[in-house]
């Protein structure tokens, strides 16, 4: 029987398309922002966790102090250098230290340009191994870069996908990085990190030449000797670096982080941003709900005579309540479905823009149960917003309503 109850509200909404559309607008915007924000947030969180968990528990990461999001990208004036690395190597308990440079750069092949990360890795075997293990890079085809290599490149697994540049790339092909030709000598296995899988690794000397970076480093990995305490080593290295950089305690212009710290720093920032954004989305949902309520109050007023008629032909108060609740619920449901679709589209657009300019750091994976839950939630918002108007409709006096003009 419930099915029949949809007929009247549906025809009514159909008949007043503009009003229905305007009513839906608020709820669509609210739901769309909830969907896109939640998914973008989750995507970012996964990207960061995936990056950092590969590091392992015997390593420290040293970067110039600054915003963790821009660390190593040389945006800040403060720099770390090969000299710092030498200082670190002399600290007792340090097994090995290796630094590398990276930045987003134009990569061309088959006359198509893309922006991905280009990393300058040391060619020295030991240092190279440390970085590769920290970044979980393993050779799939060809070989790794080695001493003496110049203008050679090892590409991430994504490059083997012909869709990336619209053409197959194979060993021995030439690729343009920052307008310079590089010969492809190897491919990495898939690491699972979308950003790393699209990175191009070149020798550090070539990198410094190409990007004019001299003795600068973006990031230094430090591996400590087995049995050493990570926190003690952190303090020791900090002290030595402070000394060599002539800095007072607590005035450090560099930072030393363990992998766990790195994750939690990002997480905290991300959580705050997400809470704020979702708060804004919640407000727009609330406004959307008020919009539905307003439309339903208007509808009850406009259809007073109709309600009187329903009562005359045998509708109980409860049936009239149901009828109007279905109408407002439908607003919530339709608004929810459209909102989810638009939110998904929006998240995918952001993902695409990210991949074009920064590299595929962000991968949005929608969870259907979550999307369905959001649609259901929107339906409930519709029902709640419509409850007071529906109650008003059900309580109308039949005779007065029939006389209403």
């Amino acid at each position, binding site marked *: 029987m419930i099915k029949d109850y949809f007929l*009247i509200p549906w025809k009514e909404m159909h*008949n007043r398309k503009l009003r229905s559309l305007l009513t839906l607008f608020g709820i669509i915007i609210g739901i769309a922002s909830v969907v896109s924000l939640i998914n973008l947030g989750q995507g970012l969180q996964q990207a960061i966790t995936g990056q950092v968990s590969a590091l392992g528990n015997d390593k420290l990461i040293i970067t110039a102090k600054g915003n963790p999001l821009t660390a190593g990208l040389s945006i800040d004036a403060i720099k770390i250098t090969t000299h710092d690395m030498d200082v670190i190597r002399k600290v007792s308990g340090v097994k090995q230290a290796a630094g590398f440079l990276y930045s987003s750069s134009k990569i061309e092949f088959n006359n198509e340009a893309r922006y991905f990360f280009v990393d300058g890795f040391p060619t020295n075997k030991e240092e190279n191994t440390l970085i590769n293990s920290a970044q979980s890079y393993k050779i799939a085809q060809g070989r790794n870069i080695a001493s003496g290599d110049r203008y050679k490149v090892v590409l991430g697994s994504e490059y083997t996908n012909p869709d990336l540049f619209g053409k197959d790339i194979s060993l021995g092909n030439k690729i343009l990085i920052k307008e310079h030709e590089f010969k492809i000598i190897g491919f990495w296995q898939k690491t699972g990190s979308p950003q790393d899988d699209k990175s191009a690794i070149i020798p550090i000397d070539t990198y410094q030449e190409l990007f004019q970076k001299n003795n600068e480093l973006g990031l230094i990995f430090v591996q400590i000797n087995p049995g050493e305490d990570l926190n003690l080593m952190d303090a020791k290295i900090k002290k030595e670096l402070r000394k060599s950089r002539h800095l007072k305690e607590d005035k450090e212009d560099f930072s030393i982080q363990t992998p766990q710290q790195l994750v939690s720093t990002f997480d905290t920032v991300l959580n705050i941003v997400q809470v704020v954004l979702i708060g804004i989305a919640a407000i727009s949902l609330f406004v959307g709900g008020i919009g539905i309520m307003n439309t339903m109050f208007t509808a009850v007023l406009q259809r007073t005579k109709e309600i009187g008629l329903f009562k005359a032909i*045998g509708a109980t*108060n409860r049936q009239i309540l149901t009828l109007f609740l279905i109408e407002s619920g439908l607003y919530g449901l339709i608004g929810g479905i459209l909102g989810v679709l638009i939110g998904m589209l929006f998240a995918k657009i952001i993902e695409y823009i990210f991949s074009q300019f920064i590299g595929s750091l962000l991968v949005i994976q929608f969870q259907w149960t979550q999307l369905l839950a959001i649609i259901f939630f929107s339906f409930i918002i519709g029902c709640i917003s419509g409850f007071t108007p529906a109650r008003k409709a059900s309580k109308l006096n039949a005779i007065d309503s029939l006389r209403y003009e």
Partner: protein
Amino acid sequence: MNSAKTHFPKKEILLELQDVWKTYQMGSESLDVLRGVSVSIYKGEFVTILGPSGSGKSTLMNLVGILDIPTRGHILLEKKDLSHLSESALAQLRGKKIGFVFQQFNLIHTLSALENVILPTIFQNVPQTQRIERAKELLALVGLADRMHHRPNELSGGQQQRVAIARALVNNPEIILADEPTGNLDSQSGKQIMELLTTLHEKEKKTIILVTHDQSLVRHAQRTISLRDGKIVSITNK
């Protein structure tokens, strides 16, 4: 006169009003719109409630149609006193036993003629296929088989009133209550509606209660109840 007798071999009371009062409270003043109305309506009869404007005809009709409850007095439908029933029980009973026909037709403009006719069945519990069949039959009965999918605003006044009559019949009610059903129609359409009501009375054996201030419609009915200032002044048989 004789024919009336043959119509009712035994007069079975369908509806009975016992000293019914309706009083409206308007601020400090109270207005007695109905003042002690007692009357019985018999199963299968065609009765007119006649009276000048403001005499309380519509008020009486709303009570008979159990859309309203009396301030004082009792209404019995099939010997059952309605004053003890809950609001929703009254609604259910109204849906089953009574079909309203209004002066302003009161069709839903967003729905087609067919959907308008089906509407009352939605609030009962009639199976889907059965109700569509019945609605189509009724539209054929009122001569609108070819207009099923038209919206009310695509129909003439007379056609709209015929849709309304089909709607009143869909739950197969005992009583058809028509309050000035020809009031908004030209004389030709009005005549058709009266003929239709007469047919329903004669062929379908429906109890018809017609409310009007139009003396000329009285001839269709078997009995006429005259109302003035909220009181019955006369009941005449044809």
